[in-house]
C-alpha cells in the first residue's frame, strides 16, 4: 500500500511543482502583534527531538501561507497555497537535530484578502529527551452501545507511517480492546478480542497466545490489565460494566461497575493469584497496576452503592497493596494513597512512572469512566512526598485521561477531548527531572486538517520502543485456530 502511495506521489510531483510555481510570494508584508490562530495549537509547546513535523493550519481562511521554522541559523519553510503549513520530513529532522535543547522559532505570514500579514512569531521548545517512537491506540467511534470498524493501530511518531495491528475485518467486526505494552519489553504486550472464542491475545515476541483468565468464581473475564516490570505477572480486574444514558444536555453517557475485583495472573505458572483484600464483594476494586519495582499493586477501590444507579455516590480511592514477586504473595494490608472525596474526587487509571517516583491518575467528580466525564482531569502524585500536582498546564475543560508513560518517564501520552468534547486525541506532555510538566501537544499528522475530517477517537494510547511484531492476520489466525 505504501508503495502505491509513493507511486501516486511521483505521478503528482509535476502537478505539485506547477502549483508551487503559482503560489504567491510575500510582498508588502504588514505586521501584527497577534499570535496566529493555528490548529493544532503548537504555540509554546515542548516536543521531543524525534517528533514528526508539526504540520499545522491557520484557522482563519487565507489564500496562501508562508511559514518559516528556524533554530541556530538553520531555517526551513513551508510555502503553499491555502491555509496549511506542511514541512519536509528530511529538513524537519535536520532542524530538530540543530534545535535539541533549544527552541524553534516559527513565523507565520499569511495572504488574507489579498494582503500579506506577518503574525507574531512563536517558539516550540525542543527537548533532548526522545520519546518512544511507537504509539498504539484503538480507533473507535465515541459510541454508546453499537460499535463498528474498530482498529488497533500503530503509529510511528517520528514520521507519519501508520499500520494496522488488529482490524475489525479480520476478527469479524468484534469488539477489541486496547493494546498494552509491558513496561520493560515493548514486544511483550497484549490486546483483547471480545466475544465468543475471544480473550486476551498475548504477544510474546511475535508469538501469539490466547489467554482466557476467567475462572468460575470471577464476575467476568479480565477487563483492565497491566504487566509487572519483569513480564511474569499480569494484574487484572474483572468488572460487570453497565452503560446508562443521561437526561441532561451537558452529559451523554455514564458507564459504571456493579461488581469488580482484582487478581494477578502468573504467566510462568499459569495460575491466578487471589487476595481477599482485592475481591471484597462489598467493595469495587479496579484499575490495578504494578509499582515500578513490582513489589506493590496500586488499584482503585470504592464501596458498592446501595442501588447500582446511585453512581454519583461512588468515589474511588487510590490504594496500594504489597506484592512479593518471588513467591507470588500479596501483602496483608492496604494503604490509601489518594482518598476519594464525595462529590469532588473519584480516582481512576493509576499509572506509575518507570522510575517509581510519580503516579499519574485521573480524577472525576464521581464514578469509574472518566472518558465520558467532561470534568475528568489528570493529576500526579509524588510517591515520595505524597504531594499532588493538579497539572494545570496539562488539563482542559474536557475529559483528559487514558494516560501512559514513555519508557524513560520523561513523557506521557493521554487522550484528551479538549477540541470538541467528544473525539479523543493523543496529546503528549514532557515531564522535567524536577517533575514540572510542559504544555502538551497533539500528535502531528501529515495533513493538518486530518482531525477535522476524522470521526474516530484515539482510545487508550500506549507507547512502545519497538514496533509490534504481529499483524491483523496473525490475530485472526490465533482466534480462528482456538475456535477449532
Amino acid at each position, binding site marked *: 500500500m505504501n508503495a502505491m502511495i509513493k507511486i501516486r506521489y511521483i505521478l503528482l510531483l509535476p502537478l505539485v511543482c506547477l502549483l508551487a510555481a503559482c503560489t504567491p510570494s510575500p510582498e508588502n508584508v504588514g505586521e501584527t502583534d497577534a499570535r496566529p490562530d493555528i490548529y493544532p495549537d503548537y504555540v509554546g509547546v515542548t516536543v521531543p527531538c524525534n517528533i514528526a513535523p508539526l504540520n499545522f493550519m491557520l484557522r482563519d481562511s487565507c489564500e496562501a501561507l508562508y511559514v518559516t521554522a528556524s533554530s541556530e541559523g538553520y531555517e526551513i519553510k513551508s510555502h503553499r497555497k491555502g491555509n496549511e503549513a506542511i514541512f519536509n520530513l528530511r529538513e524537519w529532522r535536520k532542524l530538530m537535530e540543530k534545535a535539541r535543547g533549544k527552541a524553534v522559532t516559527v513565523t507565520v505570514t499569511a495572504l488574507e484578502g489579498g494582503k500579506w500579514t506577518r503574525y507574531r512569531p512563536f517558539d516550540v521548545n525542543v527537548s533532548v529527551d526522545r520519546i518512544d517512537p511507537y504509539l498504539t491506540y484503538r480507533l473507535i467511534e465515541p459510541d454508546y452501545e*453499537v460499535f463498528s470498524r474498530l482498529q488497533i493501530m500503530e503509529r510511528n511518531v517520528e514520521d507519519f507511517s501508520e499500520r494496522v495491528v488488529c482490524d475489525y*475485518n479480520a476478527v469479524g467486526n468484534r469488539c477489541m480492546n486496547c493494546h498494552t505494552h509491558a513496561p520493560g519489553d515493548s514486544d511483550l504486550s497484549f490486546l483483547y478480542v471480545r466475544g465468543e472464542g475471544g480473550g486476551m491475545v498475548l504477544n510474546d515476541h511475535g508469538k501469539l497466545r490466547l489467554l482466557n483468565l476467567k475462572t468460575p468464581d470471577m464476575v467476568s473475564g479480565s477487563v483492565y490489565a497491566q504487566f509487572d516490570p519483569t513480564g511474569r505477572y499480569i494484574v487484572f480486574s474483572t468488572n460487570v460494566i453497565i452503560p446508562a444514558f443521561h437526561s441532561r444536555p451537558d452529559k451523554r453517557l455514564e458507564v459504571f461497575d456493579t461488581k469488580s475485583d482484582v487478581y494477578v495472573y502468573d504467566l510462568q505458572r499459569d495460575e491466578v493469584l487471589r487476595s481477599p483484600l482485592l475481591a471484597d464483594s462489598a467493595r469495587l476494586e479496579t484499575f490495578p497496576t504494578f509499582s515500578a519495582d513490582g513489589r506493590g499493586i496500586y488499584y482503585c477501590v470504592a464501596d458498592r452503592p446501595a442501588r447500582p444507579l446511585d453512581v454519583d455516590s461512588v468515589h474511588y480511592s487510590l490504594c496500594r497493596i504489597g506484592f512479593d514477586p518471588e513467591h507470588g504473595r500479596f501483602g496483608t494490608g492496604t494503604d490509601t494513597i489518594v482518598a476519594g472525596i464525595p462529590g469532588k474526587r473519584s480516582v481512576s487509571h493509576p499509572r506509575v512512572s518507570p522510575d517509581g517516583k510519580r503516579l499519574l491518575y485521573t480524577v472525576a467528580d464521581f464514578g469509574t469512566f472518566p472518558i465520558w466525564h467532561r470534568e475528568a482531569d489528570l493529576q500526579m502524585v509524588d510517591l515520595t512526598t505524597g504531594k499532588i500536582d493538579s497539572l494545570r498546564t496539562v488539563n482542559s475543560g474536557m475529559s483528559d485521561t487514558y494516560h501512559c508513560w514513555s519508557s524513560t518517564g520523561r513523557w506521557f501520552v493521554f487522550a484528551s477531548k479538549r477540541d*470538541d468534547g467528544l473525539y479523543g486525541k493523543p496529546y503528549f506532555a514532557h515531564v522535567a527531572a524536577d517533575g514540572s510538566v510542559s504544555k502538551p501537544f497533539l500528535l502531528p499528522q501529515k495533513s493538518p486538517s486530518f482531525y477535522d475530517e476524522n470521526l474516530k477517537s484515539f482510545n487508550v494510547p500506549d507507547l512502545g520502543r519497538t514496533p509490534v511484531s504481529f499483524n491483523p492476520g496473525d490475530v485472526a489466525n490465533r482466534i480462528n485456530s482456538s475456535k477449532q
Partner: protein
Amino acid sequence: MAKENRGGGGVRASSSRYILTGIFLAIAAFLYYFWAVPYRAALGYREQLQLFQSTGQYLESLAGRPGGLATYAGEFLTQFFNNYWIGAAVMTAVLLLFLMLCFLIIRNFALSIQKYVNLALSLLPSVALLLFLGNPDVTMTFLTALSAAMGGAYLLVIIDSKGVGNTVKYAVMIAGTTLLYWVAGPVTIVFTLLAVADICREKEVSSVWKVVYALVAVAWLALNVYIWSLLLPFPLSYQLIGIGYVMHPDSLDAWQVITEALCVGVPAAAAYLARLPLKVTLPSLLAAEVIALVILYPKSYDCLTYRLIDYDYMVRANDWDGILRYSDKNEPDLPLSVSATNLALGMTGQLDSRAFDYFQHSAEGLIPPFVKETLSSWTTGEIFFQLGMINSAQRFYFEGMEAIPNCNKSVRAVRRLAETAIIRGEYTLAEKYLRLLENTMFYKKWAQRNLALIREPDGVENHPLYGTLRKRMIDEKYLFSEGELDKTLGQLFIKDSGNNLAKQYLIVYPLLQRDLDKFAQYMGVVAEAQPGYNPLLAQQALAFISMRSGQPIPRGAVPAMVEESLRGFAQAWTSKDPARIEPYRRTLYHYLLSEE
C-alpha cells in the same frame, strides 16, 4: 438499380437507426419513471447511507483497496440521489451506459448480428442487473465497477480488432487486469473472461495459444488478488465478493453472480445466436426477459422491505401527511411503520383522536425500544427529536449510523448530529460535523448557514426549531430508563405545556399500555395546564372507565355520539359475534378489551 438498392438500404438503415434510438429512449423513459416515482425512496435510502467527501483525504482513504476508486465514483453519483429527479436521471444514465456497453461488446463479438437481436441480448444482463438492484443494499459501487469492467473489455476488443500482435494483446490484458482490479475490484473477472472469449473466437489463433492465454489471464488476476490480500486486513472472501459492492461485505447475492455471468456469457454466445433465425431468437429473448421480470420482480423488489424504506423516506422528509396517506393504503403493522404513523398522527395533532384508526400493539408503537438496526434507530431518533428528547435523539442517530452494515458514515445522521449538538450547545462539536458537511455537494449551503448561525450570539436561541427544542429539553438530572418513558413524557409536558407532541404521547402511552388508572392520572396533569383539553380518545377512555365501573358518565364530559358508540360496542362485544364486533376493530374499546 444498384444505386436504388443502396438508396433503399440507406432508408432502411436510417429508419432502423431511428427505431433503435426510439427503443433506447423508451427504455430510458421507463427507467427514469421507475426510479423517480415508485422507487424514489430507494434512491434516498442509498444516499443517506454514505458521507461522500470531496476531499483528497477521502479519496486516499478509498484508493488503497481494490474497487476503492469505483466506490469513490459510485458514492459521487449516489450523492445526486438526494434529489430524486436528478438521482433518477443519474441512475438511468448509468444503466443506459451499461446497456450500451453490452450492445457494443456484443456487436464486436458477433459482427453479423441483427441490431434488434443485439439489443434483446444486451437487455439480458441489464434485466439481471435491474433485478439485482432490487436488493436495496446493492450500492452504486457495483454499477460503476461493472461498467468499468465492461468499458475495459470493450476497449480491449477494439484494440484487438485492429490486428495488433500477440505481445500487445498480452500487454493490454496484463495491464488492464491490474489496473481494473485496483479500480473496480473482483468484477474484473468479467474483463478477464471477455478477453479470453475474445481470443477464443479468433480462427487464426491456435488452440494451444488460446489455452495459454486463458491460463495466463486467469492466473494473472488470481495473482493480483493474492498480492492485495497480503496488503489488506480484509478476509479473502471480502476481496472475492467485492468490497463495497453490497452493504453487507460478507454476503454474495445470487444476482451478482448471474449478472456477471451474463456479461460474459451473452457476448460469448452472441455469434452462435446470430446464426439462428431472427423469427426464433428475437421473440424468444424478449419473452424470456418479460417472463423473468414478471416472475422475479416481486421477489427482488420485496414489497415489505420497500414499504419500510418508503416510511423511512417520508420520516426523513417529515412528510407527515404523506405517511398518513400511505398508512391509509397499506396497513402499518411493523414497529417502524406503526411508530412512523403514530409520529405522523402526533405531528398533525391527530394522535389523541385517531391513534386507534390504525393497528396498535403496545406502547412500543409510540417509542420503539432500541434495536441495532439503522432505519429503526433513525425513526425512533426522529420521534425523540420531535419530542425534544435531544440526548436520546442524538444517541439513536449515532447508533443508527454505527449500525450501517458497511460501516459507512451517513449524511443524514451527521446532519442530525450537528443539529443535536447545536441544540445542546456543543458548538465546537457541531462545527466539526458542519465542516464535514461543507465538503459535500448537497449539504454545503445548509452547513454554511448553520456555521454562521452558531457564531451569532443569540442565533440558536431565536431559531424557530433549535430554540424551541432547546427550551423543551429536560433540566432534571437522571439516568434515562426505557421502562419509564411515560415519566419522561410527563416531564417534557411539564417543562413546556406547548409541547403538543409530548402531550399526545403522554395521553396515548397509558392507553396503549391498557393502564386506565395511569391514563386518568396523566389526564389530570394535562387538564391542570390545559383545562379545555378533551380529545376524542380521552372521551372514549372516560366513557369506558365509567361503563366498566358501573358509574354513570359525568354529565357533559363526553358527547352523545361517543356514548352511543360505546353502547354499540358493548352490545357487539357481549354478543361475541365476530361480524358485529368487526366494525369496532379499530377502536380504543376493542383494543382495551381484546388482550384482557
